[in-house]
């Protein structure tokens, strides 16, 4: 029986490994920075109307006549 280890230490250790791996996975992507396509996209859009048109253009089932 290994109940002693399971209660405290191992448990906390496992949880810290999970936290570490989760952040490692996430930060790997964060470190890639901003891909050019997104920087360009945001630079190109003049304002809400242009973005709404792009949303509507990319997906025809969207309602673009809202507000």
């Amino acid at each position, binding site marked *: 029986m290994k*109940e002693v280890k*399971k*209660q405290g230490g191992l*448990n*906390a250790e*496992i*949880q*810290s*490994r*999970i*936290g570490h*791996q*989760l*952040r*490692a*996975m*996430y*930060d*790997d*992507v*964060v*470190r*890639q*920075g*901003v*891909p050019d*396509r*997104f*920087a360009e*996209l*945001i*630079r190109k*859009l003049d*304002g*809400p*109307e*242009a*973005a*709404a048109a*792009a*949303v509507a253009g*990319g*997906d025809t089932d969207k309602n673009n006549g809202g507000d």
Partner: protein
Amino acid sequence: MPLTNELRDDILASVPSLRAFAISLSGNGDRADDLVQETLLRAIANIDSFQPGSNLPAWLFTILRNLFRSDYRKRRREVEDAEGNYAKTLKSQPSQAAHLEFEEFRTALEKLPQDQREALILVGASGFSYEDAAAICGCAVGTIKSRVNRARSKLSALLYVDSAEDFGPDNTVRAVIGGNGG
């Protein structure tokens, strides 16, 4: 508020973490970037409804999360093709052993119910408070806490322990939450 240059910069600054969130949710780099693109378009299209001074990353994450959920429902049946896709999004390939452990972790993460996975990522990786995570997911703070707890118990069961039932989720939870002053 109007789309000022400052706001553009702030939106752009959120892109790296939006991508990380999208990839963690979908397990697929290409789909994740489509999700981010649509999030940015919708955010700017609805920029008038953003309250100046409120939490911009949380607002953007909310949009992305809602898009993912509607997208996910549509594509439910073709979701199981993620094998290897995540690794492709990485710039540097980890070492063999680290890679195996990483794959194992990613696979375990994908086995979690969606509610639990997103709660865990928001709190454990994106660094949102429980309150912000609750706002993003449109649920109560207590619900987020219990989802995070269940996610962590389940991950430890999948990854490290053959019989996780031996220790109650409450213990697991306490150890984890302790470090997170949220």
